[in-house]
């Protein structure tokens, strides 16, 4: 059990900042996620916490005690590596008991703890095998076993699921979540996969280029992204983005125009540079001709691609920009947005709508679901502070 406090934590490699001034607290017993695209500094941050990477600036405190200069062996944290890092010359039993032997625990205690970990992770039949005789999922469980036998203060998991195939990944995901709840140990989980982050975490920190952009519960991040990057990164399929023109109190978007509230209008007025509008695929609805009078935006599109997933129907369509400037989204967001003049948007619709490629359909978007971002600053202008 432990509370981890980071204060202005900074890491520089040859003058380049890999982690910039990270400050946040991971509460006791919390399942905390660090998520971000590759190269955002999340693994570096993890390595600093466990002590494998030196801290350039700032402070890490565990339960109020500064651990900056503590050797990794003395931090009582357990780590699961992306590669599992099992010792290939040792059997599963030896792997799992290795940290206990180093801690010089009495033999009966070691046996007891290994047996319990093996039972929790269903490793009993594998104890005398070597890692090379195990499947990916089994290796993953051995790595988890090696972490839990120590009953450490903190679990650190560095992309533990990324080497598994899709089905196993989902299975291990629930298993890890259940294990964490059962043990109640403070857990820090690093991933680049927003789905993992959303499903596992009590709270999530989104990192980008070494900066912590936003920290919050999955719901907060999804519904109230403070930032264009967070908005685009969290959620699958990703948020739709379109350019916006501001003219005399009206927001003009390629799919229509509307007048924002006075509050938002003021912030838009104050914002510099171009604007980006964003809305989630599930906020688009099919409407008939008669609903013309409804508030918000109504527009007609031609269906380009249909993805039917049983419970969901994803409909992809183009919007002509004519006259609007092209959208410049952050490159590392990795959103497939078509060519600059015809951004591809997606709507999550009722599967019973029975839409086909080439169909014309009218879609409606309520005004309150439209979010506005400053393109340069990335700031969400729709949110009040």
């Amino acid at each position, binding site marked *: 059990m432990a509370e981890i406090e980071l204060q202005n934590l900074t890491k520089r490699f040859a003058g380049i900042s890999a982690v910039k001034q990270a400050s946040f607290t991971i509460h006791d017993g919390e399942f905390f996620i660090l998520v971000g695209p590759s190269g955002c500094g999340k693994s570096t941050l993890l390595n600093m916490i*466990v*002590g*494998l990477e030196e801290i350039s600036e700032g402070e890490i405190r565990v339960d109020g005690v500064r651990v900056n200069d503590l*050797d*990794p*062996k003395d931090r009582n*944290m*357990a*780590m699961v*590596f*992306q*590669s*599992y*890092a*099992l*010792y*290939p*010359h040792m059997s599963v039993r030896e792997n799992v008991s*290795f*940290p206990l032997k*180093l*801690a010089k625990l009495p033999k009966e205690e070691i046996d007891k703890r290994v047996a319990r970990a093996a039972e929790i992770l269903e490793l009993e039949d594998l104890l005398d095998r*070597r*890692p*090379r*005789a*195990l499947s*990916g999922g089994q*290796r993953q469980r051995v790595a988890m076993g*090696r972490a839990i036998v*120590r009953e450490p203060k903190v679990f650190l998991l560095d992309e533990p699921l990324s*080497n598994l195939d899709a089905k196993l990944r989902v299975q291990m995901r629930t298993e890890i979540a259940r294990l964490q709840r059962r043990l109640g140990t403070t857990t820090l989980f690093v991933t680049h996969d927003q789905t993992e982050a959303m499903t596992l975490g009590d709270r999530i920190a989104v990192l980008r280029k070494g900066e912590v952009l936003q920290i919050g519960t999955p719901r907060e991040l999804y519904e109230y992204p403070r930032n264009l990057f967070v908005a685009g990164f969290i959620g699958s399929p990703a948020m739709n983005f379109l350019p916006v023109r501001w003219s005399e109190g009206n927001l003009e978007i390629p799919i229509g125009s509307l007048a924002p509230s006075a509050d938002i209008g003021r912030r838009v007025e104050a914002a510099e540079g171009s604007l980006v509008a964003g809305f989630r695929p599930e906020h688009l609805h099919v409407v008939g001709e008669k609903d013309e009078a409804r508030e918000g935006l109504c527009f007609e599109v031609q269906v380009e691609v249909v993805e039917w997933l049983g419970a969901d129907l994803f409909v992809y369509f183009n919007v002509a920009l004519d006259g609007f400037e092209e959208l410049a989204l952050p490159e590392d967001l990795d959103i497939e947005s078509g060519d600059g003049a015809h951004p591809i948007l997606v709507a999550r619709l009722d599967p019973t709508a029975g839409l086909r490629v080439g169909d014309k359909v009218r879609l409606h978007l309520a005004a309150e679901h439209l979010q506005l971002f400053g393109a340069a600053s990335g700031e969400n202008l729709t949110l009040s502070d």
Partner: protein
Amino acid sequence: MTAVGGGSGLKERLFWGLGSALVVIYALIPVAWTVSLSLKRGADLGDNHFLPRVVSLEHYEAVFRDPQFSAALWNSIGIAGISTLAAVLLGMFTAYAIVRLEFPGRRLILAAALSIAMFPSISIIGPLFNMWRTLGLYDSWLGLILPYMTFTLPLAIWILSAFFREIPWDLDKAARVDGATPLQAFVRVIVPLAAPGVFTTTILVFMFAWNDFLFAISLTSTNDARTVPAAIAFFTGSSRFQQPTGSIAAASVVVTLPIILVVLLFQRRIVAGLTSGAVKG
């Protein structure tokens, strides 16, 4: 299996069988000849027969009766053993540092090590002889151990760093997080995984020190430090008119045995793929 398949399988087996036999015969005939010589009676040495007509151990007896030989054998074992141990240990630490640590001059060290290995030993024998005489290292164990280590360390460093490079760094990190000191992580995780490399290096370094003639003959003068290859050159026949061929053959057989033993012992440990299963794969 079809008839055609069986035929080509047989041909293939025949090809490899004959090829291997040829290589083995080519390599072993001189050895067999030496063994045969060592087992002949003194009078039969020139009898032009490949196999001894009467097997006799008289040369072996003579060799072991000679105090010079037993002293040389002891020197050889001691000097080669210590040189090997020191070179492998030092090589292990150096190679690990070169592979894992970021420090200026890493490449320089590797390049320098290689150039030392390429240095012709004959060119330093003269100066070394004079230096050792001044320093009092002439005709001592240390006087031979030092050059042996110097010439084998580069080899050890190169082989071992190649092996260490293959070991995923995550394993060090995992051991450190699991509560190991850097030394414990090295000894309990890295070295066992680099075992094939350590054994390969041990064999090569030991053979170099064990077989060396140049340094042994130049830097020793008495039984205090003279090793077997050098001592054999001092064998004499039972009379001044007799060649010591039989004794030399017997001594050669005796000194070959440890090498065979070391190779047989360690080659079992040189198994490839010891690291498989450590990380995804």
